[in-house]
């Protein structure tokens, strides 16, 4: 299986790109030359004239600086280092993917397992519940949920967890809550398709309990296709976070995420387009890399293709 995956060059490239980006994000605190909130203001070179009221002329004050060796991607509208902010933004976006993937995997597979092996009424209840969630467009529900969760200043009694503020965790909650019904459905269907297979009939005939059959026989046989589904959650989570942050209900500035960076720099695109192009390009690369990796995984795990 690993060999089949390695033979797909696009999939390997996708995984390598993701590894590099994940490392860059995880090491943002070490790699980034400056604190993401630090401002590099300095006095204008000349006395204020009419010309300095022009946003372009405000470069003199340390804002919108063009790329230099000190600031490889220049500075933004608040004279902060764009390169450092991008690295820290990458960290939050990658963290969104990881946290959401774990939460959705646990919740989705758990509910799917309960629906497939629990009593009939539980199955009906859980599936009608996911029906309603299904009728909602994912992104719309995430926006509404995030708005409904309100403002929080502490999470589990702390101001921040894993270096992420309480507010950002609410975004993770909103995104996870909208992504799990799809996985629960897939899990249920996959597990039910194994119910009539010889090995589960044999296990049941040997006196194994329903839960033992589900956990020891169904689940291991469904791991491969589920893994592919779970991989696809990551880009969706990053996309949802970026959209929420761009709209203004996601991660809140000054904490940078790729979505916050896009929202921050969008208004100044005519002054400094590079600051917008970098997070947009990063998002595109992340989506493509995840797609290639997940496609490779799907092909490698499916011996028929």
């Amino acid at each position, binding site marked *: 299986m690993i060999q089949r995956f390695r033979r797909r060059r696009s999939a390997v490239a996708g995984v390598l790109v993701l590894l590099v980006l994940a490392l860059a994000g995880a090491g943002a605190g070490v790699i980034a030359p400056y604190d993401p909130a630090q401002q590099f203001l300095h006095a204008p070179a000349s006395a204020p004239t009419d010309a300095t009221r022009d946003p372009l002329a405000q470069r003199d004050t340390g804002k919108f600086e063009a790329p230099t060796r000190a600031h490889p991607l220049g500075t933004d509208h608040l004279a902060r280092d764009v390169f450092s902010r991008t690295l820290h933004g990458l960290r939050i976006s990658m963290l969104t993917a990881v946290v959401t993937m774990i939460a959705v995997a646990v919740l989705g597979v758990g509910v799917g397992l309960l629906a497939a092996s629990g009593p009939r009424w539980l199955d009906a209840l859980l599936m009608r519940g996911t029906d309603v969630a299904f009728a909602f*467009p994912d*992104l719309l529900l995430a926006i509404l949920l995030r*708005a409904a969760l309100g403002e929080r200043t502490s999470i589990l009694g702390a101001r921040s967890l894993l270096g992420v503020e309480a507010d950002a965790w609410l975004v993770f909650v909103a995104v996870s809550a909208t992504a799990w019904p799809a996985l629960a459905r897939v899990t249920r269907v996959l597990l039910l398709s194994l119910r009539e297979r010889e090995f589960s009939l044999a296990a049941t005939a040997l006196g194994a309990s329903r839960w033992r059959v589900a956990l020891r026989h169904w689940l291991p046989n469904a791991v491969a296709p589920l893994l592919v589904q779970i991989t696809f959650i990551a*880009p969706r989570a990053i*996309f949802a976070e970026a959209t929420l942050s761009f709209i203004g209900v996601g991660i809140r500035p000054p904490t940078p995420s790729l979505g916050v960076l896009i929202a921050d720099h969008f208004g100044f*695109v005519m002054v400094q387009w590079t600051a917008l192009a970098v997070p*947009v390009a990063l998002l595109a690369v992340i989506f*493509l890399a995840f797609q290639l990796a997940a496609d490779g995984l799907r092909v490698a795990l499916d011996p028929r293709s």
Partner: protein
Amino acid sequence: MLRYGLVRLGQGVATLAAIAVVTFALMHAVPGGPFEARGGDRASAGLVEAQRAYYGIDAPVPAQFGRWASHVVRGDLGPSFARPGRTVAAVIGDGLLPSTVVALYAFALAVGIGVPLGVVAAARAGGRGDAAILGVTTVLAAVPAFVIAFALLLVGAVWLGWFEVRLGRDVTDLALLAKALPPAVALAAPSTALLARLTRAAMIEALASDYVRTARAKGLGTGAVTLRHALRNALLPVVTVAGPLLATLVTGSIVVELIFGMPGVGAAFVAAILQRDYGVIMGVTLFYAATIVVANAVIDLIVPVLDPRIARP
């Protein structure tokens, strides 16, 4: 067929009712009402109280839901909390023209380009043209409209100067068709790629089938075989994904309208969220959900016509 249609209609209404209840519950779970935040310290307790009474949100929650439901049934969707004197239906109506134009444009682009592209790719399956189409569509299908909109903005508006960064509020004239092109292209790109890939896969399967071999054996030309025999059958799986596709067009339009500064329904929705205008938030959510439910119902009614084997109670 009639019974199937009625069952489908009932399901659609039930789904909408469930969405209405969930949306209402979510919006009433929000800590802090719509008026407390806006006035800040300047709003006197009496003013907030008067506003709450005026909009009826001092009533018990079930009574509020009943009141809202009656507004929904009457079609005005209740009052907007942030725009005095306006109903939610009027707010949606304001943004309907640009939103509809962009959405229909995007849908036409996705179908008009995606399906032919898939047919061409399938006809050259394994060749260089197929590989090129497959490569481009892989990239476009993976990247959401959100990102493509920014890429388009950077290239078209900032570098080449083909159009303004903000397309502006003036959308009632004929220029709207030209103005709507950039957002429509951004919105359509992922769907176009997805349709092309689906059509390609379905066409390859159809072209390898027995009925196509029979048609060829009868001496029919390539065009007739491809379009009349293979494409007709290949379109069925393509039609069934039109529903989910429309959902992505609807949610995608929220952000795309915002990016290009179009005064559509999506822009009104985002403004309502930032202003805590719960009336508009609930109304627009229901409007979007209704659009998707109706479209899905139409698709479900079309499918049995295309393939009589699927017609079931």
